[in-house]
């Protein structure tokens, strides 16, 4: 059987022991490209993880007393499920009406998207990106672009802070002292925002990314 090497947060280690199929790998629509990519659900918490793979040619693994070709290294990173829910909310928005979530988050191609509905505190989360109405104890949601842009702006500034603490080099590739116009600080700030915006744009549809850029 194929073996995979994963870097996971420590606390996930005994999840699969605590609960059968405590960890589930599912394919869902990538919120930027729409193509199917692998995510990991920790059903105990529950919590959503993005899976990224480090892929470099000509590698293999020795795993205990076996060899595994390919040498891929998978990373599981906690991910804000709103990015995946947005994908469906925007799609549903075309109908221009308020809808219950279980009619919005449906996908013949990726039926496991309903697992998103099991994630905790969804209502709280959805307030960042939708207008909602309650009719006879049932919640109806409608995508709100301005709320979403406001939410994304917060994401960008959180990412700027994270980039600074983790010393990621965001400087424009080709830079020489001669071109330094204005104060270094303002250029830095702009570089960080541009870089963070680029990262966030990997997780939202193209047109929303363009709106965010203007915003």
């Amino acid at each position, binding site marked *: 059987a194929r073996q995979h090497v994963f870097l996971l947060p420590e606390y996930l280690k005994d999840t699969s022991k605590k609960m059968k199929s405590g960890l589930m790998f599912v394919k869902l629509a990538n919120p930027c*490209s729409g*193509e199917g*990519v692998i995510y990991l659900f920790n059903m105990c918490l529950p919590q959503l993880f993005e899976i*990224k793979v480090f892929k*470099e040619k000509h590698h293999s693994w020795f795993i205990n007393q076996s060899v595994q070709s390919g040498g891929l290294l*998978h990373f599981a990173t906690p991910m804000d499920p709103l990015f995946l829910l947005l994908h469906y909310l925007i799609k549903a928005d075309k109908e221009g009406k308020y809808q219950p979530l279980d009619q919005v988050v449906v996908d013949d191609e990726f039926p496991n998207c309903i697992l998103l509905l099991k994630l905790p505190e969804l209502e709280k989360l959805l307030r960042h990106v939708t207008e909602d109405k309650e009719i006879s104890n049932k919640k109806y949601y409608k995508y709100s672009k301005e709320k979403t842009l406001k939410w994304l702006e917060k994401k960008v500034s959180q990412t700027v802070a994270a980039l600074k603490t983790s010393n*990621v080099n965001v400087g424009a590739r080709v830079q020489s002292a001669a071109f330094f116009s204005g104060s270094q600080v303002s250029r830095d700030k702009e570089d960080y925002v541009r870089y963070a915006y*680029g990262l966030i744009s*990997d997780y939202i549809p193209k047109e929303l990314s363009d709106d965010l850029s203007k915003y």
Partner: protein
Amino acid sequence: MDLSELERDNTGRCRLGSPVPAVCCKEPCALGVDEAGRGPVLGPMVYAICYCPLSRLADLEALKVADSKTLSENERQRLFAEMEKDGDYVGWALDVLSPNLISTSMLGRVKYNLNSLSHDTASGLIQFALDQGVNVTQVFVDTVGMPETYQARLQKHFPGMEVTVKAKADSLYPVVSAASICAKVARDQAVKNWQFVENLEDLDSDYGSGYPNDPKTKAWLRKHVEPVFGFPQFVRFSWSTAQAILEKEAEGVIWEDSAAEEAQEQPRKITSYFNQGLQTSSRLPHPYFQECGLEAATSL
């Protein structure tokens, strides 16, 4: 012969030698060079020198150190013991080249072939004797490769001596026969006491002479080939006998540089130089992910 250093670590090379007889530092000496184990696909190759004063060559000859090829293993051991007894005028030194050193030299990125390894080892041993103060005036070497070029190289390296490189030198010059006996005794002992770094399960040590055409040796190689790791390091991976078995029995492996070479060899289609028109709209991941070599996992 104390090969304990080799038994401790048999993945590199080890040099050992007799004490230098005092007379050899005073009187002009003849020095012979020969090797053992050049042909086998298993085990180390041993280079040896033996030297003694010109005035005692007759005594050395009297030991009947004739061409070692005609001697049995026991006779070689007895003769080696005789030479050790006559240690007041005979000195020797060895350089044991492990199969791992041979394989990694010959298969390294920068090829270091067996002839160059042999020539450098012989020169190294002659230099070793000089550094110990032996008054070497004549050197006799069994040839490896073209005698003329080898002789010219050694003569250039050791201008103050009279160098003779000849085929069959081990049956012409007693110091070369004596060196040959030292080399063979060392190789026999090393092979017999070989310490396998790989704690193999069903290891049998009945590998025959170690020569590629020996059916026992071939059977042993086929029995001990491991599809991922090849062979124990006792085997010279650079021998075509070993490579032929690996081609058949072992898994393929691709190394970055060999893949790069292959890629260069493949001629690119002329159309690949034309721009491919409008690229598909799939966006590239953010530079952060590209630089870290990270991409979304689309399958497990």
